[in-house]
């Protein structure tokens, strides 16, 4: 039986092993006095510990911001920031907004029309009229 090389086929992991969350940090600002912070304060007390535990790769800071509406601010690895004002929201809504910021890429919002988008160059390269088969007309 002739000797055959071991078949080495690349596995399609589809980026699972190297996934990096785009959001690196979330700041939660609240006010002790103002009523618009009621939901935010409840969120910090009840939902935040669990949320922080589920997302250990995100740095979370909690700080007061007196006489101002509550805000969640996300910092992304592309250097951009996203802030959402959560005034008068319930704690559940605040959790939704926190999740939204966590999942965001940090890019500006754009309209997506194509089903597939890629930043990689095409394998075939740019089409040129001087290359390839010559057609006889």
């Amino acid at each position, binding site marked *: 039986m002739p000797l055959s090389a071991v078949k080495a086929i690349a596995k399609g992991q589809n980026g699972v092993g190297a996934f990096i969350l785009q959001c690196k940090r979330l700041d939660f600002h609240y006010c*002790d006095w103002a009523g618009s912070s009621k939901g935010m304060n409840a969120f910090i*007390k009840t939902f935040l*510990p669990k949320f*922080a535990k589920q997302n*250990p790769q995100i*740095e*979370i800071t*909690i700080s*007061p911001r007196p006489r101002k509406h509550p805000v969640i601010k996300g910092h992304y690895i592309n250097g951009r920031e996203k802030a959402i004002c959560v005034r008068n929201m319930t704690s559940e809504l605040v959790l939704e907004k926190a999740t939204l910021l966590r999942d965001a890429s940090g890019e500006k919002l754009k309209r997506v029309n194509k089903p597939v988008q890629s930043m990689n160059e095409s394998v075939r390269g740019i089409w040129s009229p001087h290359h390839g088969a010559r057609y006889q007309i």
Partner: protein
Amino acid sequence: MRRIRPSQQSIDSLSLSTRHAHSRLSSPLCYACQFHSSALAKSRHPSSLPVAAFSTSSARLHRGTGGKEPFTEKLRKKIWGTDDVPGRVDPYSHDSPMRVTAEERRELAEQGRKRAKEERRLARGEESFSADELTEVTAGAQELAKKGRSTARRVVEENEWWESLGKRKEYEPAHTWDGLERVGGKAWVDEFKDWKRGRVVFEQGYLPLTKITDSTELKRSLHRALVEVFTLQQAGLDMTIASVPGEIQARPGWMDRVKIGPSNDNASAAVIFQDPAHKSELLDSLIRRFEQQDDPERSLEERVATEEDYENGAAEELYEEVAAEASEAEALKDLAHESQQSIAELREDLGAVREAMTARGLNMTAEEPNLASEKSRKGDETTASPSDVEANQQKKSTKKQEDSWAKDWKTISLEDPNVKFAVVKRVMQLTGHRIPDIVIQECKTVGRLFDRISERPKPKKLIEAIQPSAKFKELANVKIYNRRVTPVDKEKEVGRWKVIEYALRERGLPVVGHE
């Protein structure tokens, strides 16, 4: 349909009654102006009285002398269509009723009087005037004269007053303060107080100047007020004795050990003294204070007679009240006597105890058992650790609370208005809190009253709630700040602040904006 010409219409009936006067005096062309030009109307007006015939007004002068008539007079004649023009030559003349000054009023009054005389004389001489007309004319003149007299009198009085002012003193501006009226000083204050009359009582101050805000101290004051009021109630005395105005006596040491709670029927309160002598002592001190406040030199009957005479007119009521107060006073005296006796007995007992203790060689006076025990407790505290001290203090305060309050003390009823009044008044006096009517009305229980006079605890900050929480402590990725994160903090975090500060100082610029 037959048409009536305007000249024959019913408006003419007004002039029919005075037609004879028209024939005598001028007959105006204009019906609308008839009222002004009729004899009756004319007679009412001072300028158009019959005396006007003797007037020396400019218009008449001009006519009489045949001089040149002024343009206005010509115009008036044209308007009225007659030579004898009614009304004033100048409606804004000095004697016009539109502008009459005080001085002119006097002149007018004088003229009125003269005219009245003339009128009377004319009435006597000329028979052609009707009787009605004449009476009216004279009545008008008399009225005018009367008015003139009263105004004249007033003017004279005013003038006299001004003259007297002028005679009294000429105004001289002062160059020094000698002899000037002085504001301030004790005498001035006294006078001012007298002037303010009823307010003096408030200024003296029934309430103490400083409010008690500490919750524990407030609770103790409430406890004291309740003990005093309900003890008086149980003794069958007037409960407001507790809150007579005056100095607030020091709180007796045993007061904390008097337990108070709701009575079985929930209508009142049960007060339990550890020592019955304390009860008599309390009553004794209250009664003594009441007696001191009351003027001892005036008898009870006198006081009732003088003070309440105004309010209760009936003598019987007075007698009844006097009798009631007298009996109350007797009861008070009896109680005081009893309490004094019991105190004397207690003192004897204490003396015996002291003797026995000295015989045993104990270095402790019987008069200061609390103090001695406190000293011994203090000695213990110095040897104990700080945490133990705190625990001890907590235990002590809870022990005190247990001693002074029964389990459901907050449900003690204040439904009885007399009790409520006495309690509220005493609480106000002890704590310095001015309790508004609406609160008094709403407080049905002692607990409610306490809640309303004690300040609400400050709301807890979020940081205080989450920082000690174990849930947050175990999370490595969560950072909690207890104050606002400033831009300087952010720079410090990334290690840029030192560089920035150095650069700012080098250029002589302020490091932070608010310096």
